[in-house]
């Protein structure tokens, strides 16, 4: 922290005293009374070629006499005399004054110093806000390209390696040659076993969604809710379209695991088996908690992560307990007695890309169709909710990468890693890859998904180390409910600012 402040002070000081420009003014003797009295030096050029260079100079009120202390130089600028001088202005051929001002370039440096200092201050106040998140994938959409998937966000250690399936909802291929842009935008090491595109034939007038069990279900007759009641009131406007307008709430100030409910009604229900489509992403709460865990582990973090490897399922079970306490978005429907029963749950870890799933619902003749969502307050952002008629599960087509480019050149090693899966593709902060796929000839009729497997390793940040606290770390693992209550005040102090900083930093290239 001290080093950061010192660095900023030095940069600002340099910026302010960096480069200058010289404004020179020539004044004839008859205008001596107009000499710029603020100029620190006065040069009086004599007709002989000699020149007085005076400091502490003064022109009398009429400008007729000049007094000052300095040097008299000859035409070759050799010293002739020095000391106090007094001479009539009309003995001078020309007066010269100079004023040194900051250069215009200083303004640019000052602005940059300000930007850096502001970001540094933000990071100092909230280190866990300056983060990134797992491998991110950009895909072409109707407007160019957009971030559409973040892979295996929960896999923060080799032992937690997982396969992740993301719908590329906004993907709009412009030909059978389809390209994904893979980036590592965080201080992390990403280990990617594979990244395949899954293509599924799309029904006429409908879409294909994946269930939490991994089944691909054609969906038609999508209907938005006719009613959406949340704690803040009517939430229909926020969830009726895939339009980047989201419904979210603030976390509970006492218990980060506190739940809320959202009651939905659908006046129009398609015939046959139906499902609830839910598109969501997380707020920054989970990421904050992961980073807080690593901060608590501090210098022992690597030891603990290694224990995940050697501790087997029991250790991994403890590691996942915090996520289980926070929970997913539960979808409930009323049974014949009117009691709410869980029909399924959705929700993927990660604050960047929207995850879209469909939860099959039991058939009912009752109208309107009532659905309740139960979720942790302040943890989820709901982008889109709809009910749809579901068709039978369909078989997808798996497409492996056909090409990989890195830094503008074909990368055979990366392609081999992603296709043959003997060695993973390892990426470091700032790495970017273009991964090419060959879609079926009638590519426009397919829904596209990304299935990726791997894990990632966070780089521990120096600013986290002061928070090392073994007891708090143990509480997060063994007593996550208590830990979430203990952390609530600290999280609430940063909650609003975290979202603002994160999204305005354009860390994610929406």
């Amino acid at each position, binding site marked *: 922290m001290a080093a950061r402040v010192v660095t*900023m002070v030095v940069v600002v000081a340099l910026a302010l005293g960096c480069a*200058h420009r010289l404004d020179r003014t020539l004044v004839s003797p008859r205008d001596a009374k107009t000499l710029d009295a603020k100029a620190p030096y006065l040069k009086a*050029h004599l007709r002989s070629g000699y020149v007085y260079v005076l400091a502490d100079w003064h022109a009398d009120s009429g400008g007729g006499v000049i007094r000052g202390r300095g040097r008299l130089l000859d*035409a070759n600028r050799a010293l002739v005399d020095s000391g106090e001088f007094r001479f009539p202005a009309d003995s001078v051929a020309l007066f010269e004054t*100079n004023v040194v001002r900051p250069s215009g370039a200083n303004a640019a440096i000052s602005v940059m110093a300000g930007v850096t200092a502001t*970001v540094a201050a933000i990071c100092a106040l909230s280190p866990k806000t300056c983060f990134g998140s797992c491998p991110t994938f950009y895909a072409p959409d109707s407007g160019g390209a957009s971030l559409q998937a973040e892979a295996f966000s929960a896999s923060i250690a080799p032992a937690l390696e997982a396969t992740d399936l993301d719908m590329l909802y906004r993907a709009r291929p412009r030909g059978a040659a389809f390209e994904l842009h893979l980036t590592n935008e965080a201080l992390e090491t990403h280990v990617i076993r594979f990244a395949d595109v899954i293509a599924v034939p799309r029904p006429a007038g409908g879409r294909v969604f994946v269930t939490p069990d991994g089944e691909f279900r054609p969906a038609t007759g999508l209907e938005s809710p006719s009613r959406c009641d949340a704690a803040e009131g009517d939430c229909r406007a926020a969830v009726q379209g895939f339009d980047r307008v989201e419904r979210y709430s603030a976390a509970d100030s006492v218990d980060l695991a506190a739940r809320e409910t959202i009651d939905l009604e659908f006046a129009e229900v398609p015939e046959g088996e139906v499902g609830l489509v839910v598109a969501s992403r997380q707020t920054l709460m989970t990421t904050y908690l992961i980073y807080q865990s690593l901060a608590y582990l501090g210098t022992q973090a690597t030891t603990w992560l290694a224990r995940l490897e050697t501790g087997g399922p029991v250790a991994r079970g403890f590691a996942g307990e915090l996520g289980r306490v926070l929970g997913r978005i539960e979808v409930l429907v009323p049974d014949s007695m009117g009691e709410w029963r869980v029909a399924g749950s959705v929700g993927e870890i990660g604050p960047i890309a929207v995850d879209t799933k469909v939860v099959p619902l039991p058939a009912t003749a009752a109208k309107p169709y009532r659905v309740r969502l139960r979720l942790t307050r302040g943890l989820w952002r709901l982008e889109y909710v709809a009910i749809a008629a579901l068709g039978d599960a369909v078989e997808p087509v798996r497409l492996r990468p056909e090409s990989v480019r890195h830094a*503008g050149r074909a990368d055979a090693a990366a392609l081999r890693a992603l296709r043959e899966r003997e060695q993973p593709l390892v990426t470091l*902060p700032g790495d970017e890859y273009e991964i090419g796929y060959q879609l079926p000839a009638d590519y426009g009729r397919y829904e596209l998904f990304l299935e990726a497997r791997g894990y990632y390793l966070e780089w521990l940040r120096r600013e986290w180390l002061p928070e090392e606290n073994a007891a708090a770390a143990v509480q997060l693992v063994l007593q996550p409910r208590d830990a979430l209550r203990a952390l609530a005040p600290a999280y609430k102090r940063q909650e609003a600012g975290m979202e603002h900083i994160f999204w305005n930093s354009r860390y994610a290239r929406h």
Partner: protein
Amino acid sequence: MRATRPWAVGVGLGLALVACAGNTAPAGFLVTPRLAQTEAYGGWVELLVTGGARVDGELIAVTADSVWVLGRTAVTVVPVASVRQGKLTTTNAEVGNIVGATGLGVLSTISNGILLIFTAPLWIIVGTAAGSSQSYAPERRVPPLHWAELNGFARFPQGLPDGVSLASLRPKPPPRR
């Protein structure tokens, strides 16, 4: 081996595009604006004369029809009518200070966490542009300026003194090490 990043290529391209100004003045001849307040030498002038010849040296004096230039050994009087282009460099541009501040600025982005991905290249781009711009700040060119507008930065802004022999004028001594 990790290949060059796209932003690094961009910065390199930017550096190539925004070249800095240069001059033929001997090392140490041009002083900083602060020092120029107390020195009484002329700026460094470079003339491209009709026929392709080049004349450079300290600007001794200038009038509407002649330029007096003190080269490494003697004064040359050049009629302005024969000058195709003239460039006067008044002071040291202090580009090194901008470069230093930019370098320190880039280093300081380690305090920006992951956001240095944005702030570090931004420092390089802005610093390069600022340095390039600053390098041109002390330049005065004819055209578009007129010769008489350069006299403020001549050794004798009042014009060549009557009693001064051109043969007696000596170049500015090199700075003491």
